[in-house]
């Protein structure tokens, strides 16, 4: 575990911190649709950067969030996953896992959005496992970087949503 902790410290400094306006983006959510951060204005948005589709476990991070979606909705929060996989790959993955939230393709330029959020791993060419809660005004209210191999679960997100002012 020592090495993953070290990695976490190295990268934690560059992750966009609470209080920062969430950088806008325009990313494909399907092969023929694009979404921007502004599309989610007026309600909290959870952005979950993750390394890759098709991780070989059934309780993977995106499947977990799919199950927890009703809890997120209690805070009126929307959820979007982001990885460098292409839109067709996302479509196949989402269909296979029956995901009920969009997966955004940070595919071209590769990792461009992840870089602006400080959530890109240069050497590996994938997104970090990084979580952001963006408030209804488009400002980051919470961010968290997980060791790449550890699925961070959803407890931190729920605590962050709980901490948002209700008005």
């Amino acid at each position: 575990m020592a090495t993953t902790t070290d990695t976490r410290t190295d990268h934690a400094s560059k992750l966009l911190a609470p209080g920062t306006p969430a950088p806008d983006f325009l990313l494909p959510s399907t092969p023929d649709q694009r979404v921007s951060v502004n599309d989610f204005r007026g309600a909290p948005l959870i952005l979950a950067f993750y390394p890759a589709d098709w991780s070989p476990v059934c309780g993977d991070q995106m499947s977990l969030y799919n199950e927890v979606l009703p809890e997120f909705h209690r805070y009126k929060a929307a959820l979007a996953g982001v990885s460098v996989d292409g839109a067709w790959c996302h479509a196949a993955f989402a269909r296979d896992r029956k995901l009920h939230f969009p997966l955004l393709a940070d595919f071209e330029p590769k990792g461009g959005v992840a870089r602006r959020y400080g959530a890109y791993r240069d050497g590996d060419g994938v997104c970090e496992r990084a979580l952001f809660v963006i408030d209804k005004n488009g400002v980051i209210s919470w961010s968290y970087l997980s060791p790449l191999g550890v699925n961070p679960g959803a407890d931190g997100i729920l605590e962050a949503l709980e901490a948002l002012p209700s008005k």
Partner: protein
Amino acid sequence: MSAIASATLKPPVGPKDHMQGPPDAPVTLVEYGDYECPYCGEAYPVVKALQERLGDQMCFVFRNFPLTQVHPHAEEAAEAAEAAGAQGKFWEMHDLLYENQDALEPEDLVQYARALKLDLPRFVLEMREHVYVERVREDFRSGVRSGVNGTPTFFINGARHDGPFDLGSLLAAIEEAV
């Protein structure tokens, strides 16, 4: 921030939990599991081996964490275990479910209830009316709050175990915890 640090069991083990072993044992192992999850199926004999090895030094607790979108039978199977639990046979049903993970259709569940000599009309009625759905949800929500990040997720004396769950790894983690 604190998602890793906060990966501790909430709420702690209590009287509502399904428990095997003395509640005051030096080791409490909690599993959040899904009856249709193949990895939980792999963990099932590992837990049995741990119980054999540690005897009354360990208390084992099982909480439901059905991943219903990927495992269409998991929710009903969890409710079946709870329905059996209401008749004092939670662990017997738990074992049958894990030993027959590929046969979790409603008629299979009824057959297991029959094999366990449960009050069958009551079991069937409670399953049809989803009497235990809230209990299962409660377990699920507690898992989410505890930082469960997939199935199976183990907690050793309240702290999430992030490593592999083969016998050697779990034993080592348990030894480290006590």
